[in-house]
C-alpha cells in the first residue's frame, strides 16, 4: 500500500478551504509566513476515506480480536470513559485556567476530579497521599525514586543503593539508576524473592527495595511481611511497582502491607487506553512520612469545599510534569472507578486471576510451565521443550498465533524464563474466548510436533509475512510503502 502522497493526482480535489476572513500578515511576522504552497496531496474525499480505512484494516486491535498480552497496555477499555473525557466542560478547559487569579473557581470541577481521584486511589491502595502528575509508569518510578532520595537526604541518611529482584520490570533498575542510585540485583528462588538473598544484599546504605507484586511471573511474593520488616529495619523504603495491581484490587491494600511508595498505571489497571503510544498516567502514592516530598502543584480543598492549586511545599521534589499530568487519562480512570465501585473493582481482580489460572491449567500439558502453581493475573510458559525437540521457538509460536487471528503474548520476558511466553488474558474475556485460545494453542503445538517447518514460515495470513527482525535491527531501512 503506497502513501497518501504517492496517491496524489494533480488537479484532483476534495475540499475547498474557506478563504480566511482576515489577512494572516496582519497578525504574523512576514518572516514566519510560508513562502510557497504546503505540500498536500491532491485527492478526492473518497480517495482519502479509502486510504485511511485501508490502513485501519491492517491494524490489529483489542476491539477486533483477542489480545492475551494483557493489561500491559492492551486490555479492553470500556467506551463510556471516552464519552466522559470528551465532555466539553473538561476537554475545552484551558490548562492555564486554574493558575489565573480566581481561576480555581472557574475550573473547580476539574480540580475536584484531581482531588477526588487522588482520594480514591488512596482508598484503593491504603496510601496517605497521591500525585497524579507522572505521565506514565516509568515516569512514576522516577518520581518515586526521587522522593526516596529526598526523604533520605532530608534525614541525613547516607543511602547509595536500591535493590531490585531479577524478575523486576527493566524500568525499575533504570529509574533507580537515573535517580542516582546504584542498583543491586538479587536472584529469585522458586520464582519469588528469596529472603536470604535479600538479607545478604541489605545494609545501611540501601535506600529501598523495588518490588512488583505479583511479580512478572504472575506469582505473589509470599514472604512479603518478612521482606517489609527486613527493609524497614535498615531504614530502607519499600517501593511498589503497580504494573500488576489488577491482580490484587480489592483484596490487598499495599499501604496496609507496609509499602512506602507506590506507582500505579492508570492505563493498565483503570481502563485508560495506552496502546500504540497513547497517553499514559503513572500516579504515585506515598505513606505519611513521604508526603512533604510530593511534586508540586497539589490540589487542596478548604472548609467551604473550594479547590485550589498550592505550590508552597519547601521539601517538594518540584515539578515532574507540565500542568497536572495527563488530566484526560485521570478523568477516565475516575469515571471507571466510580462506575465499578468497590465491588466491581474486586471482581476485576477475581476475574483476571481466574482467567489466567484457567488458561494455565488447560495448557499445562501442551506447554512447559516452569512455575506451575496457583498464579495471579498472568502465567509464564516456556517453549524450551518445543525448541529442543522440534526447533520451534517462542517466536514461532507467537507468529503462528497471528496467523490464527490472535495477538501474540509477550515473548522473551521475563528474562529468567528461557523461551518465555507471558500470557495475560485480563478480566474482560469470556470463557468462550479463552477456550478458543486454548484450542488454537493446542493446534499450534500439535503442528510444532508434526510439521515444524510450516510454523517457521508463519505468519502467512497477515498483511506482511515473517519479518527479518535481525536484519531490521542490524541494517535499518525506512521505506514509505507498506
Amino acid at each position: 500500500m503506497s502513501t497518501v502522497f504517492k496517491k496524489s493526482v494533480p488537479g484532483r480535489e476534495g475540499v475547498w478551504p474557506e478563504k480566511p476572513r482576515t489577512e494572516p500578515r496582519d497578525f504574523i511576522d512576514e518572516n514566519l509566513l510560508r513562502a510557497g504552497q504546503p505540500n498536500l496531496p491532491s485527492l478526492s474525499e473518497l480517495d482519502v476515506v479509502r486510504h485511511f480505512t485501508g490502513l485501519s484494516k491492517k491494524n490489529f486491535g483489542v476491539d477486533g480480536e483477542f489480545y492475551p498480552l494483557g493489561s500491559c497496555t492492551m486490555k479492553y477499555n470500556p467506551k463510556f470513559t471516552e464519552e466522559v473525557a470528551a465532555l466539553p466542560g473538561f476537554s475545552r478547559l484551558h490548562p492555564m485556567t486554574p493558575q489565573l487569579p480566581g481561576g480555581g473557581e472557574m475550573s473547580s470541577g476539574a480540580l475536584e476530579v484531581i482531588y477526588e481521584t487522588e482520594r480514591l486511589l488512596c482508598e484503593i491502595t491504603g496510601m496517605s497521599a497521591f500525585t497524579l502528575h507522572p505521565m506514565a509508569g516509568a515516569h512514576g518510578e522516577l518520581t518515586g525514586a526521587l522522593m526516596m532520595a529526598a526523604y533520605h537526604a532530608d534525614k541525613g541518611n547516607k543511602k547509595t543503593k536500591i535493590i531490585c529482584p531479577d524478575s523486576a520490570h527493566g524500568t525499575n533498575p533504570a529509574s533507580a539508576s537515573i535517580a542516582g542510585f546504584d542498583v543491586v540485583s538479587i536472584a529469585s528462588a522458586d520464582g519469588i524473592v528469596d529472603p536470604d538473598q535479600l538479607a545478604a544484599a541489605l545494609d545501611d546504605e540501601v535506600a529501598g527495595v523495588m518490588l512488583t507484586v505479583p511479580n512478572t511471573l504472575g506469582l505473589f511474593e509470599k514472604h512479603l511481611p518478612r521482606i517489609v520488616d527486613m527493609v524497614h529495619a535498615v531504614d530502607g523504603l519499600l517501593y511498589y511497582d503497580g504494573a500488576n495491581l489488577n491482580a490484587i484490587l480489592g483484596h490487598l491494600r499495599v499501604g496496609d502491607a507496609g509499602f512506602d511508595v507506590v506507582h500505579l498505571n492508570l492505563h493498565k489497571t483503570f481502563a485508560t487506553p495506552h496502546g500504540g503510544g497513547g497517553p499514559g498516567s503513572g500516579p504515585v502514592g506515598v505513606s505519611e512520612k513521604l508526603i512533604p516530598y510530593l511534586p508540586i502543584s497539589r490540589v487542596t480543598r478548604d472548609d467551604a469545599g473550594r479547590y485550589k492549586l498550592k505550590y508552597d511545599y519547601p521539601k517538594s521534589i518540584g515539578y515532574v510534569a507540565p500542568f497536572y499530568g495527563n488530566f484526560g487519562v485521570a478523568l477516565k480512570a475516575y469515571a471507571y472507578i466510580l462506575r465499578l465501585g468497590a465491588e466491581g473493582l474486586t471482581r476485576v481482580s477475581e476475574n483476571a486471576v481466574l482467567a489466567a489460572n484457567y488458561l494455565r491449567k488447560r495448557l499445562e500439558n501442551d506447554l512447559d510451565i516452569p512455575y506451575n502453581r496457583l498464579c495471579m493475573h498472568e502465567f509464564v510458559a516456556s517453549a524450551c521443550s518445543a525448541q529442543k525437540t522440534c526447533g520451534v521457538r517462542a517466536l514461532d509460536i507467537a507468529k503462528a498465533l497471528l496467523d490464527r487471528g490472535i495477538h501474540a503474548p509477550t515473548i522473551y520476558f521475563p528474562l529468567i524464563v528461557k523461551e518465555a511466553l507471558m500470557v495475560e488474558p485480563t478480566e474482560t474475556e469470556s470463557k468462550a474466548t479463552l477456550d478458543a485460545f486454548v484450542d488454537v494453542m493446542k493446534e499450534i503445538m500439535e503442528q510444532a510436533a508434526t510439521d515444524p517447518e510450516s510454523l517457521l514460515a508463519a505468519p502467512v495470513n497477515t498483511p506482511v509475512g515473517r519479518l527479518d527482525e535481525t536484519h531490521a535491527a542490524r541494517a535499518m531501512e525506512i521505506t514509505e510503502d507498506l
Partner: protein
Amino acid sequence: MIPNDLLYAKTHEWVRIEDNGEATVGITQFAQEQLGDITYVELPSVGDVFSAGDEMGSVESVKAASELYCPVSGEIIAVNEALDDAPEKVNASPYGDGWFVRIKLDDEPDDLLSPEEYAEIAQADH
C-alpha cells in the same frame, strides 16, 4: 561445545591466555545461543583498564541487551572492530572471528573456570 584449551567466567565469557601475558576474550557458544541473533556489540576502547568482573561493554540481540563483563584484569590492547559492521560473527564463530577484545594482563588471572567447571554451569543454566 566447550573448547578444552580455554578458561571461562561464570558470566559466560571465554579467555585464551597466551605465553606473552596477553589474553583474548569472547563469549561462549552457550551465551550466543541463549542470546539469539546478535544485532549490536558495544566494545570498550583500546587503553581502557578493567579489573576482573567489571562491566566493559554490552551485547544486544533480538531478544535482549546484556552486559559484557571483563573476566580478567588488565588493559585493552585491541578490539574486534569487525563486529561493528558484522555482529553476526559472534553467532557464527564465537571462539574464532567473533572474539571481542585482547587484553594485556595485569597479573595471573584467578577465579576462572576450567572447561569442565564451565560445562556444569552451562548445564545448570539451561
